[in-house]
C-alpha cells in the first residue's frame, strides 16, 4: 500500500452516497477514485472517457457530448473533482491565472467550467501537493466559487497529506483526517491560512485488500 493508494480511496469516498450522478475528474488519482467508487460502493455513478462516451467498468454504455454535459451541469446531477492552483478557506478556487488578471505573472488554463460547476452542483478538489502557495488567504481569480459566494456544495478537498471538509458553522475549511504517517502540524504548516482542527483528528482509512486489488487492476502501470 502506497500513499497514492490512500489518496485514491480518499477520492473515491467523496462520491459515497451520490447515486446516479455524473462523476467528472481531472487527474489520474481522482479518476482512479471515481472508477473504484463505481466498481464498489457507488455502482450508480456515471463516468465518461473524458470525451463523449459514457463508460461502465471501461465498457461503453452511452453518449454524452460536451453540450449534454452542460445540461447535466445545469440540472445539478453531477459531482466533479477538479484541481486547484489556489484554494481559500471557503473553497474558492483559482485555475485561471496567477497575479493581476489584467496582466498575469502566470497564465493558467482559464476559468474553464469552474464557475458553472460550483454554482450548480457538488464539487470536490484534488491537490497533489499540499503547500501554502495552493492554500492561500485569497485566490487571485475566483474561478470555482466557495461557500461564502454561493457554492452549491464543496464537499471535500483531498490532498497528498490529508482530507479536508467544510463541516464548520460558517462552512469554512476543516481538517477531517490526516493520511497515515502525517501529523496535524505538518498539515497546518502546509496550509497558508488558519485551519479549523477538531479535538480529535481521524486517520484517513487505508484501502481494503479488495480495493487494493481493484486499484492495481485499474492502474497496472502505476501512473498514480
Amino acid at each position, binding site marked *: 500500500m502506497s500513499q497514492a493508494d490512500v489518496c485514491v480511496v480518499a477520492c473515491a469516498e467523496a462520491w459515497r452516497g451520490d447515486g446516479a450522478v455524473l462523476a467528472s475528474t481531472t487527474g489520474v488519482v481522482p479518476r482512479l477514485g471515481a472508477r473504484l467508487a463505481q466498481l464498489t460502493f457507488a455502482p450508480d455513478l456515471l463516468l465518461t472517457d473524458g470525451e463523449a462516451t459514457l463508460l461502465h467498468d471501461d465498457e461503453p454504455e452511452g453518449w454524452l457530448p460536451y453540450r449534454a454535459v*452542460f445540461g447535466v451541469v*445545469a440540472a445539478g446531477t453531477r459531482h466533479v473533482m477538479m484541481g486547484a492552483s489556489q484554494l481559500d478557506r471557503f473553497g474558492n478556487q483559482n485555475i485561471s491565472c496567477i497575479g493581476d488578471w489584467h496582466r*498575469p505573472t*502566470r497564465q493558467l488554463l482559464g*476559468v*474553464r*467550467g469552474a*464557475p*458553472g460547476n460550483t454554482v450548480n452542483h457538488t464539487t470536490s478538489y484534488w491537490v497533489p501537493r499540499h503547500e501554502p502557495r495552493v492554500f492561500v488567504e485569497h485566490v487571485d481569480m475566483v474561478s470555482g466559487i466557495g461557500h461564502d459566494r454561493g457554492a452549491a456544495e464543496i464537499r471535500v478537498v483531498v490532498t497528498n497529506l490529508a482530507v479536508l471538509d467544510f463541516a464548520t458553522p460558517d462552512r469554512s475549511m476543516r481538517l477531517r483526517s490526516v493520511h497515515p504517517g502525517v501529523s496535524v502540524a505538518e498539515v497546518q504548516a502546509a496550509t497558508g491560512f488558519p485551519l479549523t482542527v477538531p479535538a480529535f483528528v481521524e486517520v484517513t482509512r487505508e484501502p481494503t485488500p479488495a480495493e487494493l486489488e481493484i486499484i492495481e487492476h485499474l492502474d497496472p502501470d502505476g501512473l498514480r
Partner: protein
Amino acid sequence: MTVMSVDEVVGELRDGMTVGIGGWGSRRKPMALVRAICRAGLRDLTLVSYGGPDVGLLVAAGCVRRVVTGFVSLDSIPLEPHFARARQHGEIALLEYDEGMLYWGLLAAANRLPFLPIRAGLGSDVLRVNPHLRTVRSPYADSSDLVAMPAVTLDAALVHLNRADRRGNARYLGPDPYFDDLFCLAARRRFVSCERLVSTAELVNEGPPQGLLLNRMMVDGVVETPHGAHFTSCVPDYGRDESFQREYATADWATFRATYLDGDEDDYQKAVAAREPS
C-alpha cells in the same frame, strides 16, 4: 454556397473581424484555414473559441487583438505556450467566460436573442473582470438573480468537419459535434473545411442522419482540406499528432514559422510528411 479554396475563404475576412473557430481545445480545429490567416497577416481579430492551437498560432502570428474564451489548452499539453506568453506580456485582450456561458452566448446569437439567463458566473470573478456583464432578476415567483449572458455574434465562423458535399451539407464522424453548428448559426458568414468533399449520396450514406451536423442553410463556403485539422485530432480520419504538437509547443516561433508556415498549405503538409518520427 460555393466550393472555395483556402485562400478564397481567407479573402472573405477583414482586419478587426470577430471570428469564431469550431472544435474544442486541440480537437477538430480548422487548422488549414488558421494557417492561411497567419500567412495572410490579418490583424486585430477578435477570436471566439474553445481555445487550442488555433488561438496560439494566430496570437503568435500577430493576428489577434482579443480572445473570447473559457480556456486555451492543447489538451495533452495543458497550457498553450503562445497564448500564455502573450497574456503575460500584456499583448492581447481577453474576454474570459465560463465554458457554459460561452455556449449560452452562441445559443443566444443563434436564436437572435440579446442574451440568455444562466447561473454560471454568479459569485465568480468572471463578473469582476467583465464589468459589462449584467444580471437579471427572474420575473417569475422565484425572483432569482441570473447572469444575462450576452449574445456572442460572429462576423465569420470557421469549422472543420470530416465530410461535406458541394452544397455545404456536412457530417462529423467522431464522437462529439462540439459546438460547430452553433458557431455557424451565430455567424454572418460561415465557412466549412472538410477532410473530403463527397457526393450528397455518399455524405448521407456514410453514417446515421443525426451525424449530419450542418446543412446548406448554415454554410456559405466549403473547402476540401485533407489533413486540414492537423495537428489537432480529427477522428476517425486521424488522431492528434502528439509528436508534432510537442514540437509546436517547444520550438521557437521564428523557426516553427520558417519551417512550416512560410509556404502554402501543400508545403505545410509536405513538411509534416518529411518529419522524422520522434
